């Protein structure tokens, strides 16, 4: 096998990739390619098979069947070689709590065969990059969730990886911490680092991903850029209507039977609201009022990947 892949070859290449745990199939024959320099995402709810896919790419989980190459290499045979060029941000923080912030980076560089001096040079630079310089000698434990996440990202960069795997990088973080993290990831992308991430936040996928696949129940159900997916599967705008709950009814909108028919090409009745998919939200509002409907609240908004997911699977991303 050649050690150098041509620049146009995908960094990650998967065909019919499967992962089974006993009788349970976590990943059921997925196909995808990740090109150098792109930000690629796996969007899907918990349990869709995203983490299992990432672990296979990270060479820490054996492939059950199908083809997977990373940097053109087979993870089963060249695991260590692949990991040399890989940065991994796992879902759980896995920091070394017995070491200080700086020491976490120093020793991690050693695991990548860096000299102490080189490891220290990069560690200091990376602490600057993730804005943790003033916490360098602190213990890891008392850091906030956002700081720990940033430290994990710094740690994943110590070997200057050309491919960064991020498994739900911002889950559990407050909005401010998320935006800081997104900013750092965006800068990495500008430096030419290929990003491969999983998320169940549609806004994160829209912010970060050039291209993504939507995963549901171990399968890929759609693929494209965020814009393409929205154009293909949903309308430009969504009208959200909420109705006061009628006596003795389980759903707020259950009493509407048929009054919304024909208002738009597609209408989704959720327990707490009605989604009307339409090219012109304001026009749909007018029509609704003409028909005598009196919703408690009206919201016209741009369609999101959340709507794409709902359309494809009939369920919300975060349940």
């Amino acid at each position: 096998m050649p050690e150098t892949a041509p620049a146009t070859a995908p960094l990650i290449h998967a065909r019919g990739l499967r992962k089974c745990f006993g009788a349970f199939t976590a990943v059921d024959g997925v196909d995808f390619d990740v090109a150098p320099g792109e930000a690629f995402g796996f969007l899907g709810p918990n349990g869709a098979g995203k983490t299992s896919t990432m672990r296979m790419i990270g060479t820490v989980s054996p492939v059950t069947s199908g083809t997977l190459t990373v940097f053109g290499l087979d993870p089963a045979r060249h695991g260590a070689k692949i990991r040399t060029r890989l940065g991994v941000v796992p879902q759980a923080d896995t920091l070394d709590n017995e070491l200080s912030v700086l020491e976490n980076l120093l020793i991690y560089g050693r695991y990548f065969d860096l000299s102490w001096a080189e490891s220290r040079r990069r560690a200091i630079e990376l602490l600057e990059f993730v804005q943790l310089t003033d916490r360098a000698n602190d213990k890891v434990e008392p850091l906030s969730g956002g700081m720990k996440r940033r430290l994990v990202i710094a740690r994943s960069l110590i070997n200057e990886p050309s491919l960064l795997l991020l498994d739900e990088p911002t889950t559990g973080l407050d909005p401010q911490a998320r935006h800081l993290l997104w900013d750092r990831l965006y800068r990495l992308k500008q430096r030419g680092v290929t990003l491969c991430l999983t998320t169940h936040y549609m806004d994160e996928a829209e912010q970060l991903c050039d291209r993504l696949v939507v995963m549901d129940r171990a399968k890929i159900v759609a693929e494209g850029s965020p814009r393409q997916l929205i154009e293909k599967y949903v309308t430009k705008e969504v009208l959200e209507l909420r109705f006061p709950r009628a006596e003795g009814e389980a759903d707020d909108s259950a009493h509407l039977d048929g009054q919304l028919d024909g208002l738009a090409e597609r209408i989704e009745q959720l327990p707490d609201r009605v989604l009307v998919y339409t090219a012109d939200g304001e026009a749909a509002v007018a029509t609704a009022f003409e028909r005598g409907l009196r919703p408690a609240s009206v919201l016209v908004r741009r369609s999101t990947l959340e709507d794409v997911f709902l359309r494809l699977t009939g369920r919300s991303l975060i349940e």
Partner: protein
Amino acid sequence: MLALRTYRPLPLTRPARIVQRNMLVYRHSFMVIFSGFFEPLFYLFSMGFGVGALIGNVPLGNGSSVSYAVFIAPALLASSSMNGAIYETSNNFFYKLKHAKIYDAIIATPMSLTDVARGEVMWALMRGSLYAVGFIVVVAVLGLAGLGLLTSPLGLLAFPAAMVVGYAFAGAGMAATTFVRQWRDFDYMQLAIMPMFLFSGTFYPIDAYPPALQAFVQCTPLYRGVHLIRALTTGTPDATLLIDLAYLIALGSIGLAITSRRLGKLLQS
């Protein structure tokens, strides 16, 4: 950009990084390391000199006899190697494996599971050898003071022999720990360690047992370690030391191999 360096480290280069990691941890609290230093000395003073004064000499297999302190000193050295190795590879290793989950992060680097297992054994051995050196130094000083605990120049080999004992128990202890599911399972491990410490010819010759029991005790690793070190410090070596060595090295190596496999199951599902 994608040219992948082919870096071939020496066999112990990467395991040594685990040792370095542990040294960083203990840099913050290195006094803890010395806790294991005193236990064998306390035994030596209380049993060897205290109880020993009541006992008189103990016959060795070859017809000669030695003072009780001389008899138990090598056994205490073997036991402290065992305890040091077991302590590091049971509780400490389990904490890192299941609670701190530090290996989950390490396996995302070029380090292999075998590197991890070897590194932790190296560390356990280093910690154990610190105790062995301390113990031997105290024994040598007492010897200079006229107590004559070391009766043979072969006694100098007690140190490498203690390392071999440490290796055996580090490998075996680590392999056992990979099967532990919760902290209280370690009670079972103590259930094996404690009787081995008391009954493996540590405090009295195993001639005291009926033949069947003697044969059984001779199959335990601590007996082999005690037998090995005692033959060296009392200057009574024979060919059976090769059995001790082969047994202990095999136990450590099999333990290491099992550990690598089990870590694969636990960390790379």
